[in-house]
């Protein structure tokens, strides 16, 4: 199973590092990253493999949401099928 992690918010130092560390700690393997900064607005989208998580996926969602809240970022972690079903026929 793969999940899409979307991080948005005001740009600051080390956002990718923080999210990557959290993923690594919980056993989520990062497969792909796309990120851009528009003005001072940061947006990153990561595709992660969550088959070998140390914790249930729903708890992983909470971990990243909490991380986002700590750093004034919005982090959405969603099963990739939601995007596949909405945007691919």
């Amino acid at each position, binding site marked *: 199973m793969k999940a*899409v992690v*979307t991080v*948005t918010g005001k740009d600051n130092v080390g956002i990718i590092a923080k999210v990557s560390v959290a993923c690594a700690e919980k056993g989520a393997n990062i*497969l*792909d990253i*796309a990120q851009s900064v528009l003005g001072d607005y940061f*947006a990153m*989208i990561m*595709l992660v493999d969550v088959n070998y998580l140390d914790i249930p*996926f*729903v708890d992983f*969602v909470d971990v990243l949401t909490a991380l986002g809240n700590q750093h004034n970022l*919005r982090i*959405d*972690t*969603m*099963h*990739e*099928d*939601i*995007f*596949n*079903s*909405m*945007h691919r026929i």
Partner: protein
Amino acid sequence: MLNTSDILETIQMIRQDCLDVRTITMGISLLDVAGGADSAGCISNRIYDKITQKAEHLVATGEQIEKEYGIPIIHKRVSVTPLSLVGGSLDQDGYVEIAKAMQRAADTTGVNFIGGFSTLVHKGIARGDAALMEAIPEALASTHNVCSSVNVGTTRAGINMDAVNICGNIIKQLAVLTEKQDCIGCAKFVVFSNVPEDNPFMAGAFHGVGEPECVINVGVSGPGVVRNAVEKHPDADLSQLADVIKKTAFKVTRMGQLVATEASKRLQVPFGIVDLSLAPTPAVGDSVAHILEGMGVERCGAPGTTAALAMLNDAVKKGGAMASSHVGGLSGAFIPISEDQGMIDAVNCGALSLEKLEAMTCVCSVGLDMIVIPGDIPVTTIAGIIADEAAIGMINNKTTAVRLIPAIGKKVGDMVEFGGLLGYAPVMAVNSFSSKKFVLRGGRIPAPIHSLRN
């Protein structure tokens, strides 16, 4: 990898445009626990046991899907076989006891609503139907989450005006019994013509006799998403705009289909249908009226509104039909007053009247919904409004419904507050001329000629 703009579009739909799955509704057949000559207590226990067993994991599963997919699933609900078919030889008090058992089942399972305190009397009223209808006011006044419906007409059978008159009375009694709670009882009761058997939306959901033992039906929402898409195309002509709406409806429905399939798999219950209805909420931005205004009418209710609504409703169905393997339920834009901020504003500024709403119901589902009228309106006028709406459904071969709230002690312009998804609404003016002599004739309005299709 997935397209970045697609991902951000989905996130925006959910975070900013209030995209959600309105309800996962589990339909449960109660035919195998039907009553015969058993006592009310005995039947109630069997109903409670069956509902709590079948729906044991419904809420937890819904919450898990919500978390994993990041899609809000607002309600988890249960619908059951129309209870007039289950109650056997029960009297009025017996049916009230059953309603209380349904409430206990709702409390135990944690579902938001339970529907099916219902009966179908479009051609005539059997003994059990009469007992259930007599019990509706007390049943709904003494419970919180139980919903009730009565079908008074079909295209094939015509309209049962005796039942229409009884329903007028039920609505008035419900208002009186729940006067202290802003007449909330009326919000849990709906009168149908051509009622669908697989509707996941309340207050009209029940589990029809053609349905399987247990089934999962899903109702999506998404007026905010459609409004946003429409507003991004201010200069498009109506052909282009219809395409925009279709594409948006497709995406919204695919999400509903995904949730339905997943819920069905996890609960090991067959998937029934996705209901394509655009269901508004009082939240800012989640309004069907605002879509119509985005299409170009100055205020919902202005000339052109019915045409805009017809196009919207049709485009939503066209887009949604391809996105789901089975479409059913009501599948049409809802135009409730209290649950839609744009509708509330349109009434308050004088743009929208009861008569215009009636015209709008000719081209969309599901009828005159959550409309607050003065509490001193005669029962026969309420019956007249029901009859008008049922006739629109009967003649046009579509579902129509009436959910009116006579606000006891309130006059036109006063506000009534229901809270939650039910919202709030201003009291609307009703034509003061009488329909008494017509409705009290009783009997049945014969089925229209196009019922003879065989």
